[in-house]
């Protein structure tokens, strides 16, 4: 058997190796967290497109604040919510680079709504990787703009009361109304099938950017076992059973195909 392959259940399978665009480093993420999966998906896409040297990633304030340490391409750490503005500055200075922001729900859908909406409206030729896990992870699990109605968090200890604090924001639906958006898709990471679909969405978004077609966003429904106080398998089940019904998966905008789903 070749060194890069091994036999699994009678089939010759490629050996599972580290994506080239990832550093050989242990991450600080909690066990079972999907950030590692997302980092890997991005790195695999960058490897497949052979654009590592041409990529600049913009990392947020939040759990992924140290993301630039885990990748082999250039990284810029932005202030809370401002990643799309920082990415705009990079892209306008270096239009032929692949520039993406990596943002959580607190970063993007609360403090950074202004920046993401206007980057999208301008048709800024960048990609936003939006990690929606319904909670502020890094600060210890406070209620986020995407926290589900009734969901308990550190700052909604009795469950999110929509009478008092209103409703979650559906970012893909909201941004798909903007003409500057070339591509918007929501995917989930709760099982292998959906993880594969998530990778395809990221690749599509990056390709659209490299073709110069405008703003693209991939929203990934993700977990937070620590702050949800669940085991990793239970957290994946929770995504499927609670998040997917509230945040339906699919392509919300594909300017090429004329798809606009609101």
């Amino acid at each position, binding site marked *: 058997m070749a060194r890069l392959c091994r036999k699994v259940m009678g089939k010759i399978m490629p050996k599972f190796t580290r994506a080239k665009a990832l550093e050989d480093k242990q991450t600080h993420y909690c066990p079972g967290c999907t950030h590692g999966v997302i980092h890997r998906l991005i790195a695999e896409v960058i490897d497949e497109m052979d654009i590592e040297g*041409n990529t600049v990633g913009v990392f947020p304030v939040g759990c992924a604040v140290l993301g630039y340490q885990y990748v082999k391409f250039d990284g810029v750490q932005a202030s809370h919510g401002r990643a799309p503005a920082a990415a*705009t500055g990079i892209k*306008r200075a270096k239009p032929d680079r692949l520039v993406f922001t990596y943002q959580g729900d607190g970063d993007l859908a609360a403090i950074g709504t202004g920046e993401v909406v206007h980057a999208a409206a301008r048709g800024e030729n960048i990609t936003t990787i939006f990690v929606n896990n319904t909670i502020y992870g890094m600060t210890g699990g406070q209620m986020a703009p995407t926290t589900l109605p009734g969901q308990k968090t550190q700052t909604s200890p009795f469950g999110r009361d929509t009478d008092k604090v209103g409703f979650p924001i559906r970012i893909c639906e909201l941004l798909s109304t903007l003409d500057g958006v070339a591509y918007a898709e929501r995917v989930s990471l709760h099982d292998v099938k959906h993880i594969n679909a998530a990778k395809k969405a990221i690749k599509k978004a990056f390709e659209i950017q490299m073709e110069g077609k405008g703003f693209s966003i991939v929203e990934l429904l993700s977990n937070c076992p620590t702050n949800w106080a669940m085991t990793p398998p239970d957290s994946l089940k929770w995504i499927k059973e609670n998040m997917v019904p509230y945040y339906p998966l699919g392509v919300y905008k594909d300017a090429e195909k004329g798809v606009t789903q609101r």
Partner: protein
Amino acid sequence: MKKTLMKGNEAVAEAAIRAGCKCYFGYPITPQNEVGAYMSARIHKRGGVFLQAESEIGAINMIYGCAATGTRCMTSSSSPGISLKTEGISYIAGADLPAVIVSVQRGGPGLGTIQPSQADYYQSTRAMGHGDLRLPVFAPYSVQEMVDMTTEAFELAEEYLTPVIILADGLLGQMMEPVSFGDDNSEKPGKSFSWAADGHMGKREKNEITSLRLYSEELEESVNKRFARFEKFKENHTRAEAVNCDDADIVVAAYGSASRVVQSAMEMARSEGIKVGTFRPITVSPFPEKALREACKVAKKVLVVEMSMGQMIDDVKMALEYKLPIEFYGRQGGFVPGPEEILEKIRGMKV
């Protein structure tokens, strides 16, 4: 050299383009709108980018990203807008990135007035964002100085890896004066920097641009290095102008617009036989302490004139170590004091 009659705000924009500024990000606010207007009409024809951001916060973070790629860039704003930018300026400084920021002061606090003011001296010299931070701040007093300082600021920002502030005010921004410009370097390619996060292209190790330093040792070291650079800047670039101080009984200290009025007041006082000299800090941060002490060698009293309740006066007191009586005259609310008011104050000082 050929002179052109130009508004301060427009002259700053032209100077920036000539200095090789490739990107300008801004947000409208009076009294500095001519900077953005001038840029929007011209910079793209000379190889640059103008973008009107969604807010001052957006604009300063665009500067952060642009500066991270090693590209020359500038933003401008006025008091409430500068307040919004300070978080971003702190990040830019914390990540050791070069940028030029033009602050055209108006009266405050709050929305205040669109009239000129010098009430943001503390903000510029002490508090351009959170954290242990000192930034170079130039205080022009003419449209020509706005041009010269903007040109120089781009070079110094890259040499000292820091945001550099041009602290003007609504009067300097709005008034027209004849100015001459240096070489037009707008077509020249920018420098490339080993630290820039502009895609490694397989030719170098990756670069990380960040102000995050979670380990105390690492943060302390970075702050110390930054302050060492500021000390070096202090040695090489602290600047001031002293006029008629050799025999002056009273030295009047003022910067920017106020210093122009003080100049007239001095001439009026001299013609009455009162021995007055003037001292003008050209860099307000670092403050020209030695030059002030030198200028006040024979002085019996010092008068500080500002378009505020008195902010620079603190630096004057510290520089002179409270050894001389220091008086203050200020106007607020957008008023620019007239020379007669200052003369009246000088007459009453009885030396």
